[in-house]
C-alpha cells in the first residue's frame, strides 16, 4: 500500500470508505509528518488532538452506518492562520494578535468542520496576508520544500498563503485553506506546484477571517489536484447571512461537474498580459497551455483587456486603503498586544502598541492607505482607482462575451530565494501582476501546475472564469492537469 501522505483528498476519502485505512490512521500519519516538519516553519500551531477527534468521529460514524459519512469525513486539513478558530491561537501572522484565542469559529472553517474535516493546525502566512514571499510574517518565513536543482538555498513558497502552499506541497497536509486578496492563493500555489482556486467574490463567507481588504478578500482551497480543490470548495462555500457581501446562491456540485472535455469552449488569450521582461520560459509555458486546452477541444481566441496595465497600481491603492481602516481595530484596548508608556496617555499607548505590533510591510500599507484616503488626495487616488476598477470589470464583462475562460501565466517568474526581493517592494508587488485583475473584478481564478523552469522550480498556469462560473475554471484546470507533465518534489530535505 502506498503511503497515506502521497494520496489525494479524493483517494483518502475513497480509501477510507472502502476500508483501506481508518480515519485515525490518516490523522495519525499526518500528525507525525506535521511534527517532523518544523524546518519548513509552515505550522504556527499544531492541533493533533483536533485532527484525531474528527478522525475518531469519522471512524465511529463509519462503524455505525457508512452512509452517515460526510463529504470530508476522515480528511485532516491545514488552516491558514487568518481564519479564526475557536480556542486555537489565531495570529494572522502578526505579533499584534500575539496568542489571541478567538471565542468563535470562522464560517469557512466551521463549514469544513461540519463537513467532517479535522484540523491539523494553523498555517503560517505573511503578516495580515500582506506579502508575496512569506517574509513579512512575524514568526519567520515559511521555507518552501522546493529547492533549485543543485542548490540548498532557501526558496520562498510565495505568499501570503505560503504556509498552506508549502504544507500541501510537502505532504504535511492533503489540502489547506488559503485566502486570496490579490493572488495570495494562486501565486503560492504556482510557486509550490499545487492547485489553488479563488472562487467568485462572495462565494465563501468572510465572517471570521481576519480582514485585509474587504472588497477583495476571498477564501479558497489549496490542494494537490483540481478535483481536491473542487471537493474542498464545495464544503467551504455557501451563503452566510453574517456576511453582507456573501452571495445568496446554492453551491454547485463542482466535483460531479468536473469534465476535461472542452469541446465547444473558447479560451481567451489576453494580449495585454504579454509583458516586456517576462522570462521566455513563462511565455513558452503559456503557449504550451494554449495547446493543451486546444487538445482538450477548446478554441483559443485572442481577447483584449485594455485596462490591465492599470490593475496593479489600482490594487495598490484600494487594498491598502481598506487595510488602513480594517487594521485600525488593533489598538491595544481590547485584545492582542498592548504596549503601555510610563506616564503616557491613550495616544501614547496607540503609538507604542502599533509601532511594536505591526511589521514594516503592514506599516507601509497602512501609510499608503491612509495617504490615498486623506483629504485632498482622496479623489486623485481612491476615487480614480474605483473608477479604473469599474473599467477593469467592464473589460472582463466584454471579454466573456467572446470566450468561456481566460488563460494566462500565474506569476511572472518561478519562486525566488528568500531575501532576494525583500528590499524592493515594487519588485515584490509585481509578483501579482497577472493575479490582481481577477481580484479587482471579483472573478473566480485558479492556478494549476504547468511545468518547471530551468532550475526545476514549478510554474503555474492561471485560469480566470466568468462570475459564478467556477466550473469552467475547474474543468480547464483539469484539462491542463491531465496533460501537463507531473512535477515531483526533488526529495525530502527537512
Amino acid at each position, binding site marked *: 500500500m502506498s503511503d497515506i501522505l502521497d494520496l489525494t483528498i479524493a483517494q483518502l476519502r475513497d480509501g477510507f470508505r472502502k476500508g483501506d485505512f481508518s480515519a485515525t490512521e490518516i490523522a495519525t500519519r499526518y500528525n507525525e509528518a506535521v511534527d517532523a516538519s518544523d524546518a519548513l516553519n509552515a505550522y504556527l500551531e499544531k492541533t493533533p488532538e483536533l485532527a484525531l477527534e474528527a478522525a475518531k468521529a469519522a471512524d465511529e460514524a463509519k462503524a455505525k452506518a457508512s452512509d452517515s459519512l460526510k463529504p470530508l469525513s476522515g480528511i485532516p486539513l491545514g488552516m491558514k492562520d487568518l481564519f479564526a478558530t475557536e480556542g486555537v491561537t489565531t495570529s494572522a501572522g502578526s505579533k499584534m494578535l500575539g496568542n*489571541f484565542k478567538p471565542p468563535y469559529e470562522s464560517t469557512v472553517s466551521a463549514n469544513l468542520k461540519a463537513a467532517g474535516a479535522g484540523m491539523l493546525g494553523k498555517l503560517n502566512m505573511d503578516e495580515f496576508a500582506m506579502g508575496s514571499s512569506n517574509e513579512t510574517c512575524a514568526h519567520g518565513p515559511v521555507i518552501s520544500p522546493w529547492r533549485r536543482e543543485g542548490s540548498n538555498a532557501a526558496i520562498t513558497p510565495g505568499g501570503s498563503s505560503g504556509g498552506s502552499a508549502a504544507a500541501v506541497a510537502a505532504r504535511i497536509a492533503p489540502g489547506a485553506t488559503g485566502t486570496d486578496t490579490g493572488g495570495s492563493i494562486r501565486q503560492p500555489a504556482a510557486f509550490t506546484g499545487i492547485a489553488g482556486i479563488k472562487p467568485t467574490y462572495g462565494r465563501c463567507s468572510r465572517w471570521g477571517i481576519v*480582514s485585509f481588504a474587504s472588497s477583495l478578500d476571498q477564501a479558497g482551497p489549496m490542494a494537490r489536484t483540481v478535483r481536491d480543490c473542487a471537493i474542498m470548495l464545495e464544503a467551504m462555500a455557501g451563503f452566510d447571512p*453574517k456576511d453582507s457581501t456573501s452571495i445568496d446562491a446554492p453551491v454547485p456540485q463542482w466535483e460531479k461537474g468536473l469534465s476535461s472535455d472542452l469541446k465547444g469552449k473558447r479560451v481567451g488569450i489576453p494580449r495585454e498580459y504579454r509583458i516586456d521582461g517576462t522570462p521566455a520560459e513563462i511565455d513558452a509555458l503559456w503557449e504550451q497551455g494554449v495547446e493543451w486546452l486546444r487538445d482538450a477541444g477548446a478554441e483559443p481566441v485572442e481577447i483584449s483587456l485594455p485596462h490591465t496595465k492599470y490593475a496593479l497600481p489600482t490594487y495598490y491603492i484600494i487594498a491598502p486603503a481598506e487595510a488602513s*481602516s480594517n*487594521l*485600525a481595530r488593533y489598538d491595544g484596548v*481590547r485584545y492582542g498586544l498592548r504596549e503601555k508608556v510610563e506616564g503616557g496617555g491613550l495616544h501614547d499607548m496607540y503609538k507604542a502598541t502599533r509601532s511594536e505590533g505591526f511589521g514594516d510591510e503592514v506599516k507601509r500599507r497602512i501609510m499608503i492607505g491612509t495617504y490615498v484616503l486623506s483629504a485632498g488626495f482622496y479623489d486623485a487616488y481612491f476615487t480614480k482607482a474605483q473608477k479604473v476598477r469599474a473599467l477593469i470589470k467592464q473589460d472582463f464583462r466584454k471579454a466573456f462575451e467572446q470566450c468561456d475562460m481566460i488563460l494566462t501565466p500565474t506569476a511572472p517568474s518561478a519562486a525566488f530565494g528568500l531575501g532576494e526581493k525583500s528590499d524592493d517592494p515594487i519588485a515584490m508587488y509585481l509578483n501579482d501582476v497577472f493575479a490582481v485583475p481577477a481580484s479587482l473584478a471579483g472573478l473566480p481564478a485558479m492556478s494549476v501546475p504547468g511545468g518547471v523552469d530551468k532550475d526545476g522550480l514549478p510554474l503555474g498556469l492561471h485560469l480566470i472564469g466568468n462570475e459564478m462560473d467556477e466550473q469552467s475554471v475547474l474543468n480547464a484546470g483539469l484539462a491542463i492537469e491531465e496533460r501537463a507533465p507531473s512535477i515531483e518534489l526533488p526529495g525530502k530535505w527537512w
Partner: protein
Amino acid sequence: MSDYRIKGQKGSYEVVIGLEVHAQVTSQAKLFSGAATAFGAEPNTQVSLVDAAMPGMLPVPNRECIRQAVRTGMAIDAQINKWSRFDRKNYFYADLPQGYQISQLYHPLVGEGEIEVAPDEKNPDATKTIGVERIHVEQDAGKLMHDQHPTMSYVDLNRCGVALMEIVSKPDMRSPAEAGAYLRKLRSILRYVGSCDGNMEEGSMRADVNVSVRLPGEELGTRTETKNVNSVRFVMQVIEHEAKRQVKAIESGEGVQQETRLFDVAKGVTRPLRSKEDAHDYRYFPDPDLLPLELDDAFLAECRESLPELPDAKLKRYEDLGITPYNAAVLTAEVETANWFDRLLDAGAEAKAASNWANSVLPGILNAKEIDFSDARNTPEASAAILKMVDDGDISKGQAKEVMELYLDEGGSPADIVEKHGMKQTSDTGAIEAEVDKVLAANADKVEQYKGGKQALFGFFVGQTMKAMRGQANPQVVNQILRAKLDG
C-alpha cells in the same frame, strides 16, 4: 421673521443657526449587530463580537433601524433615497473599537425635507418652515468612564453600535426661540412616528449647535459648532451665549475661529474643544464590508402605510373641530396626550368642551393630587362619561370636577360616584318650584327690594335655591322658575 438681534457697537447682528440632531433609533437591536440596546444595563453586558470589533467580525444592517429612519424621513416630507451607501469615518478613540464609525457621508438614506415650527407658543398659527438638509443613519460610540480607577479609564461598549439618525437642519433658524421650537417639534414628530423616544436626559436625543452671526445683508459669518447639547433649554442658552461671544469677538477685532466647542452646563458658557487646524481628517470612504442599501417599493409602501397621523395633520383636524389654535397646539405636542385626547373624542365627547376639560380642568385636578397624566386611572373614557353627564344636564360643570376627584380617589365609574354621593342634578320642576317658593317666602324683604329695582339680587335667589337643593338643581330650570315668579 424673527427680530432677535444681538446689539453691538457696529449694529444689530443677526444670528444664523443650524442644528445637527442625533436621535437614537428605537429598536431592539443595534444597527449592525444583534446586541440589545436597553438603557441602563450593567457595563459591557450588551456587546456582541461585532460591537467589540473582534478580528474578522462583519456588520449586517438591521432592517428595523433603516425602516425607522425612512419613516422619519417620510414624516418630514423628505426625499427618500432608494439607493444609499454606508461610509466609514475613520478616527482613533478608546470608545470606538473598530477605529471607524459606520455612517453615511456621500449618499444618505434621506434627502431634503422640512419642518413647520411655531416659535411663539402663544401664537401657534405664526409658523416658520425650517429646512432639513438630510437624515443619515450611523453607529453610536461607547462610553469612557474616568472615575473607576486612579490611573486608568474604563470603557463601556453597551452604547457602541446603537443606531442613530443624524438629522441635519439647514441654517434656517434665527433665534434661540426658533431653535427651541424646531427641537421641540422634531422631538414631537419622532415620538409620533415612534422612531426615537426623544429622551434627552438619557441621551437618546442630543444636538450639535452651529452658530454664526452677521450684520444684516452680509455674507454668512464664521460658525462654531457646540457638540452634544442635551436639552432644549441648553441649546437655547448655547445660542445666546455663542451669539454674544461672537459679536464681542468680531468687534474686538479678534474674530471668530471656526472650531468645535463644548457647553459647560454649570457655568452656562461654551469652551473651545478643538480648532480647525486640529480637526480630524476622517478619511471617509465607502464601507467595503457592506453593499449599497437598496430599498424596494413594497418596503417604502409599508413604511408609509405604517405612519400615524402626524402633529400638523392632527392640529388642523382639531382646529376644524372648533378647538382653539392654542388648545390644539398644546394637545398635539405630546403624542401620548394627543392619543389620549383622540380616545376622548372617540368616546363621544364634544370637541370644544373636551379640549377645555383636557387642557385646563383635568391638569388642575391631577396636579393637586400629584397624579401623572399617564396614570392608569386617568382614562379618557372616564372623562368622556363625566363630560356626557354635564352635557345631559345630569351634573353641573362645577360638579364635574368633584366627580373626577372622587372617581380618582375611589375608583369605580363616574356614574357610580354620582349615584353613590347623590350628586345627580334634578330638573324636576315641581321639586324646584317648591324650594323656590320656600326661598321667596323666607326672604320677602329681599323680594320687595328686587321688585323695587335691585336686579342684582336675582343671583342671591338662585344661590339660595341651589343651596337648598344641595347643588343638584339644574341651574337653567331654577333660573326659568325664578324669572317667572319674580318678573312674571
